[in-house]
């Protein structure tokens, strides 16, 4: 009966939840994904892939949370630290005991008078394993302690005829379980006094920014709108329909003026807009740096010089961007300028990005300098510090971000979990109030894109201090389950009988309905290969009479729909054709995302 009590205690306390060398042992959070097909997957790694429409079940181990206190020593009393250490050691030993005793009983059941060497060896091995955690338990009983007295009393009760080792060990474990409960009660009291708290937060992190999301029991964050990605939709969204119109115009432009005109008309507006935002920010910051450097009394000469130099560098970069804007604004593309335009554009982009990175580094240095000015001068430099920060952000987002366009297209979202901070809506739980479980239905986290991640962070702290994050889990969301993906894009169909002088390839707006699937284990399948098979419908015009002809094709799509190829049939002209489609390597150039998916919010 007491062994039952022991097991119940251990189970209730979570001490036996995963004995052995499994590295997940020490984790406070145990995550499980249940997808839309009701398939359940235990998430063992700190970084994993989940389906974008799954529900994540989170078990929170109070014991592991307490054990984490051992890693956060700041502010802990010696008594608390000792209690944490003792209870952790005892809980660990008890968990191992439970497992080893089963093995030991099995081995000893083989015993018979004059046992063969194999049986003796088996019993010795099992005894050695079971004795190890028992030894830890016995060594925890310091002479004169409550635990020592409890053990002595239990051992005194052993009958003169003796007990088998499994039975003896069980009695010792019973006393240890009682001691563990007492230690935990003491620890809870001590933690209460010290104001120890625990926090669990969840964030959706993606190309569109980061947002904290609601976890039942852990925060007062307002739930996001429910947003479900329809797995089996074959219809274009309103956004995709608009894009299809734009693609139709782009196709006309390609067919009549060539590739140069196409690139310039769709790519330049985005580039110029980014440059414009940055130059505005640079101007404000340049003036602020000049003003602080020349008017604030009490700054050292070194600081003044640094501010003047920075203002100069800001101005130089602003002038440089202005030159680029003039270069790409309002010029009429030459009919043969496609390759030259692309080469020049690439060189300019590279130069702009490199200079932006250098300037960002410089801004970081200036901010460090401003942080070290005497306290009396801080108010005078506060505004400059703020605008420097804004400019650094603009450089990062608008200039460096251009270079990251390709990366974002491949969902290579850089998640820096260290930057995620708990808002005031996240509750500070005591050990007693810490919920033991919660769940996050990803559909309730608002709009998200494949490649975005959900990040869980568990933190501990004391009193009013900032919490220390002791555990982070990052789950990248992809469309793992089979689904339809509708995409719109530009295809280049080979005209079977091109008339003299006209191109063999004709651009046409098209959309595809693709059957796609992802992988929980092979990340590149979700981020790079992204295979899809399906139907492609296009508006062809083989005879160039400006009357669209419907093309129906089978298509294979790869690389996030950047590359499509297939063969089809021009229904109106009774002609077979093959085609390829190329997505443009920036996520939203001039309203031409070729890989927009049919995501629909729940009605």
């Amino acid at each position: 009966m007491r062994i039952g009590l022991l097991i119940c205690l251990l189970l209730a306390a979570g001490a036996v939840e995963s004995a052995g060398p499994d590295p997940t042992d020490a984790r406070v959070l145990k995550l499980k994904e249940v997808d839309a097909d009701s398939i359940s997957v235990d998430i063992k790694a700190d970084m994993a892939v989940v389906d974008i429409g799954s529900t994540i079940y989170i078990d929170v181990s109070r014991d592991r949370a307490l054990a984490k206190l051992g890693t956060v020593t700041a502010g802990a009393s010696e008594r608390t630290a000792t209690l944490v250490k003792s209870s952790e050691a005892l809980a660990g030993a008890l968990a191992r005991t439970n497992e080893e005793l089963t093995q030991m009983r099995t081995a000893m059941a083989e015993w018979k008078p004059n046992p063969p060497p194999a049986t003796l060896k088996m019993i010795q091995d099992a005894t050695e394993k079971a004795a190890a955690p028992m030894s830890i338990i016995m060594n925890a009983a310091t002479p004169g302690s409550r635990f020592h007295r409890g053990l002595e009393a239990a051992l005194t009760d052993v009958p003169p005829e003796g007990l088998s080792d499994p039975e003896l060990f069980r009695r010792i474990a019973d006393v240890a379980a009682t001691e563990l409960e007492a230690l935990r009660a003491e620890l809870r009291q001590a933690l209460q006094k010290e104001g120890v708290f625990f926090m669990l937060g969840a964030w959706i992190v993606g190309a569109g920014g980061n947002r904290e999301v609601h976890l039942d029991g852990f925060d007062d964050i307002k739930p996001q709108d429910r947003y479900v990605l329809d797995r089996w939709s074959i219809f274009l969204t309103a956004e995709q329909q608009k894009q299809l119109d734009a693609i139709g115009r782009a196709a006309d432009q390609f067919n009549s003026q060539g590739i140069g005109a196409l690139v310039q008309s769709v790519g330049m507006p985005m580039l110029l807009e980014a440059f414009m935002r940055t130059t505005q920010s640079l101007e404000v910051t340049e003036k602020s740096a000049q003003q602080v450097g020349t008017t604030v009394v009490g700054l050292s000469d070194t600081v003044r010089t640094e501010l003047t130099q920075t203002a100069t560098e800001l101005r130089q970069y602003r002038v440089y961007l202005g030159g680029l804007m003039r270069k790409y604004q309002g010029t009429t593309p030459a009919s043969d300028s496609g390759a030259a335009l692309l080469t020049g554009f690439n060189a300019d982009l590279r130069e702009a990005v490199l200079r932006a990175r250098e300037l960002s580094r410089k801004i970081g240095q200036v901010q460090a300098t401003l942080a070290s000015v005497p306290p009396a001068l801080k108010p005078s430099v506060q505004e400059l510090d703020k605008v420097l920060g804004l400019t650094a952000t603009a450089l990062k987002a608008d200039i460096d971000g251009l270079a990251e366009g390709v990366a974002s297209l491949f969902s290579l979202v850089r998640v820096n979990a260290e930057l995620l901070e708990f808002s005031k809506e996240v509750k500070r739980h005591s050990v007693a109030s810490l919920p033991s479980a919660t769940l996050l239905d990803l559909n309730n986290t608002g709009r998200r894109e494949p490649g975005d991640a959900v990040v869980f962070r568990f933190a501990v702290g004391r009193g009013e201090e900032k919490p220390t994050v002791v555990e982070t889990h990052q789950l990248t969301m992809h469309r793992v389950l089979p689904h339809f993906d509708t995409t719109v894009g530009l295809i280049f169909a080979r005209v079977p009988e091109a008339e003299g002088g006209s191109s063999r390839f004709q651009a046409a707006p098209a959309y595809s309905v693709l059957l796609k699937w992802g992988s929980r284990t092979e990340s590149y399948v979700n981020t790079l290969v992204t295979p899809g098979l399906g139907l492609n419908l296009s508006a062809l015009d083989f005879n160039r009479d400006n009357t669209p002809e419907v093309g129906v094709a089978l298509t294979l799509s790869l690389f996030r729909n950047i590359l499509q190829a297939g063969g089809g049939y021009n229904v109106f002209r009774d002609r077979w054709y093959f085609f390829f489609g190329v997505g443009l390597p920036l996520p939203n150039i001039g309203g031409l995302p070729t890989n927009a998916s049919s995501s629909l919010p729940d009605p």
Partner: protein
Amino acid sequence: MEFRKTTVLPLEDAKEAQRLLRTLINDEPYVLFVVLGEGPHREQLVSKAGKFAGLESDLKWVVWARSLEQVRPELEKLKGDAQLKNRVLTANPQAFVLSFADELRDVIEQDEPIDNVRVVRAYLNGQKLS
């Protein structure tokens, strides 16, 4: 006083005592709890060690060597930690424990108070993997 699972080495025949001890150490698959010396306290310790020696299927055994000098040649051959061995040979301890692999694992010192916890702990030191 009841002695369970215990071999008491003869006082009057040193060679036989050494042979018995040697056999128990080398040929038997036990964790050995060896009590050294005479007197009522040692007798109590032998009894206590016997109580925690388990049932027949438990590979634990008690040896009472009432004269350390008598079995010294065997003790000098003991394997294991050199410091522990030195204490066995020079510090007149109350008892020591050998592992399944006949290695010296624990020594109960001359002045140590003996209770049930100490005896069980000594056995466990002999039983666990080093």
